[in-house]
């Protein structure tokens, strides 16, 4: 399966390599604000940069301070190109994402955490509600 239906949170389209974080993710604490790389010890992508990637993870934790981090990453040019979460988002994160103007979607209709691999080229069209794998995946 190469195409998933998703729920739009923030409008826009973006493409980039997928960055799959299977667990929960917190912008506050899991990311180095200086270089935009993942620093969380339990994250399999530790050391990877968010910049330009389509960041995909299960759910957001610690949302309150995280939105400020997300906006800071945008200001510094270190933000991901798009974000997709498996679980629904809360109001707080939605507000932050809208202000950050990063294409953002959630609640896909398939198992994207296992079916998409880190590094695979993907494209999010939040307006159409579609996340698709654009390469052959290998």
């Amino acid at each position, binding site marked *: 399966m190469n195409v998933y239906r998703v*729920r*739009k*949170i*923030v*409008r826009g389209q973006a493409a980039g390599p997928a960055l799959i974080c299977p667990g929960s993710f917190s912008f506050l604490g899991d990311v180095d604000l200086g270089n935009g790389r993942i620093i969380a010890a339990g994250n399999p992508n530790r050391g990877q940069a968010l910049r330009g990637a389509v960041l995909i993870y299960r759910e957001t934790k610690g949302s309150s301070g995280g*939105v400020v981090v997300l906006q800071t990453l945008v200001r510094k040019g270190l933000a991901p190109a798009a974000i997709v979460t498996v679980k629904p*988002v809360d*109001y*707080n994160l*939605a*507000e*932050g994402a*809208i*202000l950050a103007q990063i294409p953002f979607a959630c609640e896909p209709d398939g198992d994207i955490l296992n079916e998409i691999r880190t590094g695979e080229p993907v494209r999010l069209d939040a307006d159409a509600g579609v996340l698709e794998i654009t390469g052959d995946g290998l």
Partner: protein
Amino acid sequence: MHLNPSEQAMLDGAEGPVVAVALDYLVQFGEAFGAERLVDLAYCHYPAEMGIYEGSVEDALAYAAQGARVRVPTSCSTLCADVERPTSTGCPATLAALQTQVVDAHRRMGICETYTCTPQYLGFVPPFGACTCLVESSAIIYYNSVLGVRTNRGGLFTRYAAITGKYPLMGYLLDAQRRGTHWFHVDIPPESLRTYDRWCALGMHIGARVGSEVPVITGIRPDRQEWLLGLGAALATSGSVTLFHIPGVTPEARTLEEAFHGDVPADRRIVTAADLDAVYEAQTTIAPHAPIDFVTLGCPHYTLEQIRQVAAALAGKRLADGVRCWICTNRMTRRQAEFSGYVQTIEASGAQVVADTCPVESHMRQSTCRDYGLPVPQVEAMVCDSGKMLRYVGDLIGCRTALTHRDGCIAAALSGKWTP
């Protein structure tokens, strides 16, 4: 989302770019959560642009300079300094000067410069059922539960709600979301629920068990407005409760059935005095008879009557050496308390009546102290009658804590020791 013609015109720029951008954010926000339309707001409580957050004051000034003006009655939440007495709390002069600048931005925007967590006590009380947008969890839960005024937990977008007078029809603005979900029955004799701190402990206990749902609480009769305030503040602190019902007391729950919209659950959880004891135990980390250096009263901001009682208790007495005691309130109440002589009586004892802020919102946060080169921590051991305050000061200020009734707080301030 369906927009009416005037909303569509606003979005298209008929009322200027600041309003158009603000409405665009709200429309995206509403669409993300499936809202069908916008509603007109009756009131907003605006997030204070706090000097302790980098860039926040500058951002407020820039927004005011762009011509942003609020369209509905709007009050403002707490700051990090007492703007009439900027250095009286020990706030560094540079931080106080930065923070005080924000007053001008708010004034230009048409925001009432209230700087309080309890705007309901200043007269911002819209009609029952009105839609509003507030920040400050203790105010949000009070408006929803006690006043029957509808609001979600407003965050960053409270700004855009105030600028447009609009908000997406969703969450707690909808009837369905206001239905009680969990039933708690309090089996505690009324005579042991007669002080403010006990209601805070009750809220801390229930909030931790109900998360973000809507508790319905029976077996209690809150006879004082501040008991409802303390209960709500604690529910919103240990959980993220936005609305509670007390059948026969709060306006959307004339009966148990109404609280649950007719669908009363079979199970109820019983709350006992032992549950409250556990809250006191968890929030008390100061050893018995150990020295204390700070007493806080006024979380959320104290009412005039509470200040009157503190004045009566402190009349003719002196705080122990090395102890600071803040009685936190809003400016309007402090002015009345000055007229009534309470401030003079309290301050003759060495305690302070502080407006606009409180310890946890002040420069005493460890991160702010580091930014301004102040010693950390600013407080070693704090005694307080509020579960909410104590939940935050341990981490943010780095002090040990003790929860007790107001008499116990005052005794600690006078003796310089924590006596359980």
